[in-house]
């Protein structure tokens, strides 16, 4: 009886309730996330072309990526090019928009909605529209450039322009999201700091430089870290705007994820693609740790 009472008490306890609630999610993640990661690592140590037997290779796939595959370094370069441009430009634009909208009072909601709309729109639909905008002969962008006396630009066909074209669309698509995060951060800055500074004679630029940006550092850190992680994994924008598999004219938009996707699903080199994914994981990990150390905020008022 004592045992039954104890068992019933365990079953009805709060901890048991919590356990029951989270167990399905944990199992889901263990199987579909961590299980998949472990299996991917296993594959990265093997040669496996779908339909053929799996052969153990050790770290040969990693060696191939780092030493023998010229497209890997092209993809790496493109990935960093994309990240180095889109992150600061997107961040700066989002901050400007957030600071501007923050002071609009009631109109802030309207503008917030307008800038957030691209974020919630389907990237596929957006890409179809942008592909037409970029069309060299009939696209709106070239029509405007032509009307201003500029040249006919082959946006998605010219290797030197394809990546900038993707970046423009990506920044336009994502700036609303970053802006909303900054808006939330701005609203967490006490007004008293601004009032005190204005009493001391600070102008708008000084307010931005000495109060807004320092106190926004945790938000900026978050945006930079998540932005870098996202940028290094960019794929969808290339795939849908430039067209399958996303490598673009002369591999101009071939990023690491595009490269590994092509290796996996066009050439069916699953082992090599898995190794490439883990190399990317290592790169992201290193940069994330570096960022978190360097951007640790020391500002307090």
């Amino acid at each position: 009886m004592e045992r039954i009472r104890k068992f019933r008490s365990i079953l009805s306890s709060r901890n048991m309730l919590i356990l029951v609630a989270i167990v399905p999610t944990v199992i889901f993640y263990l199987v579909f996330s961590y299980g998949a990661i472990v299996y991917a690592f296993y594959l990265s140590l093997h040669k496996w072309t779908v339909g053929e037997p799996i052969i153990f290779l050790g770290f040969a796939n990693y060696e191939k990526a780092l030493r023998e595959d010229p497209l890997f370094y092209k993809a790496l370069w493109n990935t960093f090019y994309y990240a180095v441009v889109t992150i600061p430009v997107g961040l700066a634009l989002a901050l400007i928009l957030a600071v501007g909208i923050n002071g609009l009072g009631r109109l802030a909601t309207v503008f917030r909605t307008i800038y957030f709309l691209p974020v919630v729109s389907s990237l596929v639909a957006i890409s179809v529209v942008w592909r037409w905008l970029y069309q060299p002969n009939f696209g709106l962008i070239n029509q405007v450039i032509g009307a201003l006396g500029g040249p006919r630009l082959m946006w998605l066909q010219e290797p030197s322009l394809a990546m900038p074209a993707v970046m423009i669309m990506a920044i336009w698509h994502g700036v609303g999201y970053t802006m909303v995060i900054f808006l939330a951060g701005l609203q967490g800055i006490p007004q008293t700091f601004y009032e005190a500074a204005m009493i001391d004679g600070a102008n708008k630029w000084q307010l931005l430089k000495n109060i807004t940006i320092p106190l926004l550092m945790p938000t900026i850190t978050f945006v930079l870290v998540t932005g870098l992680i996202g940028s290094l994994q960019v794929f969808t924008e290339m795939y849908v705007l430039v067209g399958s598999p996303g490598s673009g004219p002369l591999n101009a938009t071939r990023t690491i994820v595009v490269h590994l996707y092509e290796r996996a699903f066009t050439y069916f080199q699953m082992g090599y693609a898995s190794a490439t994914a883990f190399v990317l994981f290592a790169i992201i990990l290193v940069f994330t740790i570096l960022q978190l150390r360097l951007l640790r905020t020391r500002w307090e008022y």
Partner: protein
Amino acid sequence: MSIRRFVSLICVVGLLVSILASYSYAQKMTLTVWHWHAPFMNALKPKLEEYSKLHPEIEFNTMLVPWGEYWKKLLAGAAAGQAPADIIGFHNSQSTRFIQLLEPYPESIFPLSEMRRINYNFDQAFVLWDGKVYFLPSGLMSSLIYYNIDMWKKAGLGATPKTWEEFRQAAKKLTKYDDKGNVQIAGVTFGSYLPLIWEDMKYQLGGWIYTEDGKAADSSWIETPGIKSLTFLRDLIFKDKVTQPGFLDWTEAFGTQKAAMVYSWTWFTGWVNLNYPKLKYAVFTLPTWTGKMTPAVARNNWEVLYGVLKTVPKEKKEEAFKFLKWLYTQDDFLIKMNQEDGTVPGKKSLWARKEIRLDPVIRVALKQLPYTIFPGERPEFIDTAGGNFRVRVEKGESVEDCLKAYKEEVDNALKERPVIWNVERKYKPPKQ
């Protein structure tokens, strides 16, 4: 009867009906059919319904999967031991990759002797290197020039060109420019098919795709056949300006009447008819350097019917093959498929049919077909490398640089995965 009893009765009857329906559904076998090409699926659907009426225990589900995703999904499913579809539309460019995953057509249902008797050139095209058959012929396809009839007449053009020089002149007459000199209507545009027309022109000059062992691209790519062909195409773009780099994609360009001529394989017939049914167009055979069709005019390829994955459950596999055997007796369906595709039927008995002889695209394709070369497998990575080739050409890089880079890319891919099914050099031009 009270309302409560009436409602209870309705509920019981409804429950019984749903149980009976479920039971009846459970007795049925559902076969899933995949394809990437809407005209083919539309041609197949009436036959699926017909077969279900003859065999009420069999039902069909169909799914259109875009070409870009089709093979990935099939392979991913097959790798996991699943069968995403029971009956799959197949393309022979995927032969090497899929041969381990496809179920051979059973000899008991498809006797080889019968297949050889009723089909054209069956052994070369359908008995693969392991001696087995994995798909059956639909028809033999090649490339033609599609032209807009109204634009042709407006430009005052008469007979269709027989030589590339005549073709160039026609294209120049058909091209229209805006006041800035940009092409508004292309006399001809190639788009992503630039590498393919180059390949055909190279064939006309005695070139090949592969070396004899299939482990590299043939040297003719960077010799006279390749150089002369690319020089002509490059001049069309940059000297004659009959099109412009970055012009509309050729399918849209033709459909929206922004291009007067396009080079295409004849699957385009079904696509144009479906998407632009009011467009008035006609076709002509590829021009040649001399006006004569020897030694060759173009490549051909077999469009094939369906395959069955090894991972399909046994009982479904049996029913799938029985259905495919029945389907292959349905001449009206085969004719429809060939009309959609502009292909000459693999089944020889259909050649005499009026629908084939008088079809406006097939009867033109028939003229050049004996002068077309079947290479065997032509893997997809050749088209991927062709995409980069096209970019280089449109960038204005030199002919030699473009060809060298293209050949290098294909050589590297063939080194990793040589073409096993290489029958290119079996071609012999018809005796004059």
